[in-house]
């Protein structure tokens, strides 16, 4: 097996045993980026020099056996919405072209303290708004399983990088499914932790009450390792939780015997592809065979989650994106004759169509006279969804369903129909609105395209989600399938 094909835990052992060096490993991954980067377009920026410098520092740490951590020397990709000091960070938007933050996100600081190696900034939908990565302000990402198909979004670059061997693992962000859906469409594991579990400080905001950073990895255990490194309270983010972080690896292999797992009937949505549904039903049966008791549950407000989301998220986004006015940093249009014209020209040229659409939606929803009918109403729906989950979790330990109703679709298939695109997130959005956590992991292939199983656990029960996911993974071989671009795992 080539080094770039391996998992964090494998490589950690090899690094600790001095079988390989971090520089060798990093060069292996950089080489793979060189081979397939032009095909996937997973990266917006490859920080080769920084990566090799960090790899050398990691090797020094490994050599002297000083503070060796699970991620020391491991090459990781960062979604472009994460600020890295002195490294261009654009959130996939032209309006932030050339913006180099003078500070790093808390998760970046934490990974740096672990001794991780940063490969670069991965491509994404502009300001994380999208489900196919076609809204990138620069270029779309291609799915390593079928280059004419989308990798999902918005963390499509991170997903494609992990699935193609262009990174051992990556960080993504998930506002309505942006980690889980691309993970499902590229055959990797993607984990959206509970809101508040991971600091958002330095995450370029889309929708502040929903955004959450999480791991994108080759298997479940790697997600546990990566989450362990980034989770926990941050005094710079007042919405981060002070709850202690458990040891996510410790309880991973307890199995599902005796666990109660719920299947929300509403999650088998209209329009779900038969192969996807079949694969999910098979996965449920397998977990039952592993000793879990399965019961159907109802989350009755699931059908209004999507419309509520498309009020709350754009409303917050319309405010979060107001700062991009071209005055202080990023792109500035020329030719404005006065302040207002300057603002308008900059924002007209700097933002893409989907971002503008959401700014308009959100501005409208917050306008005086409409606030009660839209924003306030959507917040009430959010409360109903939170209550749905609470009721369900009185009966069961975790919920099972598909991550995406379809497998990866061809590029361009949905770009003309925003609503069809929004429907991709219909089963992932409730977890963001409901303040719970959700993990997507591979559970099959349909015509050579990956299918994702979603496990949803109560708020701050990341351990439960990981435990169920790990039990499924160890009983199956799906996670071992490698995309054609990554090559056979020989």
């Amino acid at each position: 097996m080539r080094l770039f094909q391996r998992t964090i835990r494998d490589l950690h052992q090899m690094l600790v045993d001095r079988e390989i060096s971090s520089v060798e490993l990093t060069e292996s991954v950089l080489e793979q980026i060189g081979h397939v980067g032009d095909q996937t377009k997973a990266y917006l920026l490859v920080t080769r020099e920084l990566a090799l410098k960090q790899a050398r520092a990691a090797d020094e740490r490994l050599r002297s056996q000083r503070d060796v951590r699970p991620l020391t020397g491991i090459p990781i990709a960062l979604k472009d919405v994460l600020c890295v000091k002195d490294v261009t960070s654009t959130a996939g938007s032209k309006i932030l072209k050339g913006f180099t933050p003078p500070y790093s996100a808390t998760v970046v600081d934490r990974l740096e303290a672990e001794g991780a190696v940063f490969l670069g900034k991965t491509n994404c939908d502009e300001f994380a708004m999208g489900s196919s990565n076609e809204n990138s302000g620069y270029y779309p990402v291609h799915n390593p399983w079928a280059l004419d198909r989308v990798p999902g979004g918005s963390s499509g670059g991170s997903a494609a990088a992990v699935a193609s061997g262009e990174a051992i693992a990556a960080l993504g962000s998930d506002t309505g499914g942006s980690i889980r859906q691309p993970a499902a469409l590229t055959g990797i594991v993607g984990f959206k932790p509970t809101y508040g579990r991971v600091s958002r400080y330095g995450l370029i905001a889309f929708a502040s009450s929903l955004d959450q950073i999480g791991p994108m990895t080759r298997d479940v255990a790697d997600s546990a390792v990566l989450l362990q490194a980034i989770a926990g309270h941050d005094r710079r983010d007042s919405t981060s939780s002070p709850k202690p972080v458990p040891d996510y690896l410790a309880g991973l292999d307890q199995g599902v015997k005796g666990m109660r797992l719920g299947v929300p009937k509403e999650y088998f949505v209209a329009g779900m592809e038969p192969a996807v549904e079949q694969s999910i039903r098979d996965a449920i049966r397998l977990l039952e065979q592993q000793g879990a008791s399965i019961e159907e549950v109802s989350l009755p407000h699931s059908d209004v989650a999507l419309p509520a989301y498309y009020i709350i998220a754009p409303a917050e986004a319309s405010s979060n994106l107001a700062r991009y006015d071209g005055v202080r940093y990023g792109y500035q249009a020329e030719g404005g004759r006065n302040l207002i014209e300057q603002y308008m020209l900059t924002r007209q040229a700097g933002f893409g169509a989907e971002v503008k659409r959401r700014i308009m939606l959100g501005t409208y929803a917050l306008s005086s006279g409409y606030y009660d009918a839209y924003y306030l109403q959507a917040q009430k729906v959010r409360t109903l969804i939170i209550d749905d989950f609470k009721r369900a979790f009185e009966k069961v330990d975790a919920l099972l369903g598909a991550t995406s109703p379809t497998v990866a679709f061809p590029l361009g298939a949905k770009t003309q129909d925003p609503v069809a695109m929004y429907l991709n997130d219909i089963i992932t959005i409730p977890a963001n609105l409901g303040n719970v956590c959700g993990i997507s992991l591979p559970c099959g292939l349909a015509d050579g395209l990956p299918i994702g199983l979603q496990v949803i656990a109560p708020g701050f029960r990341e351990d439960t989600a990981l435990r169920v996911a790990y039990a499924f993974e160890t009983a199956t071989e799906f996670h071992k399938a490698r995309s054609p671009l990554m090559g056979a795992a020989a």
Partner: protein
Amino acid sequence: MSAVATTYEVVVGLEVHAQVLTQSKMFCGCSTDYLKAAPNANTCEVCLGLPGSLPVINRRAVEATIRTALALNCEIPEFSKFDRKNYFYPDLPKGYQISQYDLPLSRNGHLDFDVKGEPRRAGITRVHLEEDTGKLLHEGAIEESQVSLVNFNRSGVPLMEIVSEPDLRSADEAREYVMRLRAILQYIGVNNGDMESGQLRCDANVSLRPAGSSELGTKVEVKNMNSFRAIHRAIEYEIERQTQVLDTGGKLTQETRGWNDARGLTVSQRTKEFAEDYRYFPEPDLPPLDVSRKWVDEIRSSLPELPAARRERFITAYGLTPYDASLLTSTPPMAEFFEATVRLGAPAKASANWILSDFSRLLNADQKEIQDASVKPAHLRELIGLIDSGVISGKMAKQTFETMYRASDPEPALAEAKGSSQISGDAELAGIVDQVIAENAKSVADFKAGKEQALKFLIGQGMKLSMGRANPQRLDALLREKIS
């Protein structure tokens, strides 16, 4: 002119913005000392609103706001939150201001003040907390300026907004309200009261209605008043302007007008048709505030004596007029100067007169605060003592006071005043010495027995008899001579 002009009732409500005296900014650790720092020196990713940065609430700013609200007799709800006020302007780096909309830290209070000794009360609608903006600098006149610069040192400085009910009925009332409010803010140490540099700012909502009417007239918001005088003049001007419009059958426009102090008039800035929709919504980056009763009680018990209470005490304890008591309690340093002078033995009425007349006149001319003057309470007490004991005349004392005030050390001027009328001649002192010896046989005996202390007492008696005019050195010598 029409034969019967309508009489109008003036309706004024004030919005006062007061920067909170904290070390660090509202949502980050940057210093609030924005006046002295080099442009944009006191900034970070949070107060510059850089992508990805998040605010963290400054507990001390919340505490100061609650302190203010309690001093203004407000209710403090247990639950409060911050909201975003969205608008575009280059001095607002996030494109929104973090403020408070429907659940402010406090509401329903009142402020007692007086106009020429007559008590008045204005309702306080609310006191809330928000962040200040940066400051724009234009090259030349704003209309023609080709370059505008932004200094974000002020961005994120904690700012309280204190909103009154439309309870004020004249420019006099408005001015007195702000003066009393400023005194309270200074008393409780939450604001430095500096209007000129904008650390205390005032906007006025001014409208007129026919006397007897209960409906409110069209409201005009007047901004940019940087002194008590400006507040008074701007409101007077606005009352006159609105009266003329209404008297000539015109209609007033709901608008914002700026006070131009140099020209002495208000100028329309924007009308209601272009009024912004701020699209307030709860700030998702900050959790709501749970204000515990225990905390509120702690803050309440730490409040010092407030101007109204101190004013009452000055009236009852020192027999001052309400007017004098109001003026003396308008700033803590002045009230403290007065009390210190009285504590040293000076009569209250005379102390008040000196502080409020000669002293204040000189301070005002120099734009100086009483605590910065070289004249201290002990000097004033001594000067008053010299007048009372007839050593110097009132007229002479005024000259002496001014000399004392101008000098970096007031002592020589005081000594000179005493010296100019000092009795040093042995012939003149002989009578005093004889009288002292005659009236204090016991002390004379004590001194003879070797008690040096007794002589000091005898000299004191001599000073008293001479009403302070005797030369103490000579007195000493003559007493020793006479007794031995």
